[in-house]
């Protein structure tokens, strides 16, 4: 009985510490909650559609809900090469904007190229690496200058198998760069892999 009480107390203490630190992954020995996909069915359909694993978010900044086809999902795009772009956006005049994109490029690891800002030249879609973020078994590179739907976003990109994945968020009011990086780290920790079912 005593052992049970002690275990419960330790668990409570661990949970308390986690809450105080604001970092669910911080502290050795802390019991980590397993990330849970926010919309298992929707992301499963996407994985099945492209015949490749996709990353499903288990947390997004409020009010974004990660639901493909939901009210905040503004982009749901799959290209002929099976690469995908899933975007979520919330906007309120005077309050600001939240915009998150998730991408995957099955079967390729090279950073794609996008139309440049002036002239006809093409430039890397993700550029200016600013170090790495490591969490959830993922070693992601932070890119600060990005193109297309990721313009003015901070973007995390990483490899899994022979594929490239990316997660980005717009730096816009009410968030600053620092806030966006914090959001991205939290989203990265919450990702789960959803594999295709044949």
């Amino acid at each position: 009985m005593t052992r049970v009480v002690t275990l419960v107390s330790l668990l409570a203490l661990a949970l308390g510490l986690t809450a105080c630190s604001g970092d669910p992954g911080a502290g050795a020995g802390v019991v980590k909650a397993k990330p849970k996909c926010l919309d298992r069915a929707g992301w499963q359909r996407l994985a099945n559609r492209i015949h490749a694993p996709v990353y499903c978010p288990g947390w997004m900044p409020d009010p974004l809900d990660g639901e493909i086809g939901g009210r905040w999902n503004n982009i749901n795009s799959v290209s002929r090469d099976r690469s995908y772009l899933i975007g979520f956006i919330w906007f309120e005049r005077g309050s600001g904007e939240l915009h998150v994109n998730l991408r995957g490029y099955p079967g390729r690891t090279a950073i794609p190229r996008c139309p440049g800002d002036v002239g006809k030249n093409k430039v890397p879609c993700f550029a200016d690496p600013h170090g790495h973020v490591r969490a959830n078994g993922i070693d992601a590179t932070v890119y600060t200058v990005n193109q297309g739907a990721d313009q003015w976003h901070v973007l995390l990109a990483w490899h899994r198998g022979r594929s490239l994945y990316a997660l980005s968020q717009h730096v816009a009011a009410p968030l600053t760069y620092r806030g966006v990086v914090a959001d991205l780290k939290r989203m990265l920790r919450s990702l789960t892999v959803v594999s295709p079912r044949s």
Partner: protein
Amino acid sequence: MRYTRRGLLAGAAAGALAATGIYEAVDRLATSPRRADALGLPPEQHLLDLRVVHDDGIAVLVPPLHHQLVTARVRASDLVSAQHELEEALADLDARFPSTPAGLGVTVAWGLPYFERRVAAAWAKHAPFDRRAGKHALLPAIRFPSDPHDTVLEQNEVAVLLRSDSLDNVSAGAKRLFDELDVFEPTSIRKGFAGGGFEGRQSLPKRMAMTANVPGADLIPDTAELFLGFTSTQRANLGPGRIANLETLGYTDAAGGYFHGGTHMHVSHIFEDLEAWYLNFDFQQRVDTTFRPGLRARRDAQTVAQGPARVTDTNEVERDFRRRGRIGHSSSIQSTSRLERDTLGPDGTVYRKGTAIPQRADFNTLDNPFFWGPRGVDREPSAGVHFVVFNPSSDDFHRNRLAMDGVLPNGTRLPLEPGSRAQGLNSVLHTTHRQNFLVPPRQHRSFPLAEL
């Protein structure tokens, strides 16, 4: 420390002159560089001996840490008495502080409203004339193509620039000239700082921006001299010695006249959108737009060579634009800011082809847009620059600034949309205020022409 208080502060200027606000952090975050002793007072007010360091093998001038610029209107009605009072106060400061960054640099500059309202007859007779431009050497400020339509063209009568490594010295200078004298009524107080991390430490702009929590602060390179990341006080980038004097290059007729030894000063305040700069332009694009399209620079380099041998002329600026669709800030300005041929100054100094003419004294700021103004200012810190530059005339400055917008000295106007990315740097800048001033020689720094 976090400075995020938003509020509109007005009230008397007296307190603001000595107040430090966020700039107190400059003294906490930086140590004063070692400085040479003063060599005596030159006839010019605007010259200050600066230490030279080498960064990436390139000679760089180390500007004073603290800057304060106070604009004012003339309160005194008896100009001759005011002239004596002000000169006495300035002489007092000269005696107390060596005219070096370790001491105090004081530059008193006068605007057109002073000359035209207060000493109109003498001004009509002695105003230096820019022979090259066919106009007066001191002209009203203008808005440039990339300026917003609401850029304020100011009408201040006088501006006093105080520069020192010591905040106490700057405060003492401001107190002596504006508190203890009753000849001026301040119209704005502008404060800021300069200083790079040339010894490898985190630079002052980076630390100040982080302290103030301005958007994009995290993205400034750790050792950057300026918020926008590149070193701008390279020796080759700044005019040497007396080159920016009114008379040196013969642009004006000031030689031997009342204003011999004087210069022209342009002052503007510019907001800088750091997030737009660092999130929309990758390193190569920042190099392209700051220096020259296609220029090769070591990855993450901050000090990029700008010596006479690398000067870009008008044809090259046009060619770069046709090929790459953009212009560089430095390369476009160089088409007017560098000497086209060897030139002999009146004191026998030879200035070689490719030598820079403007002498810049700009400084980073967190003012929004000023530290103090009579109608109040927003105290939410905002990244920007108080741009201060000495040129031989208003027209010379205007030529440089127009070139920055693609209006080249041969009359070519490159088709650049205001604020377009092809203009690079300009697309993240927002100029709020501009004014031109005349800096008399030290001998006539106090209420010039009043004695006539």
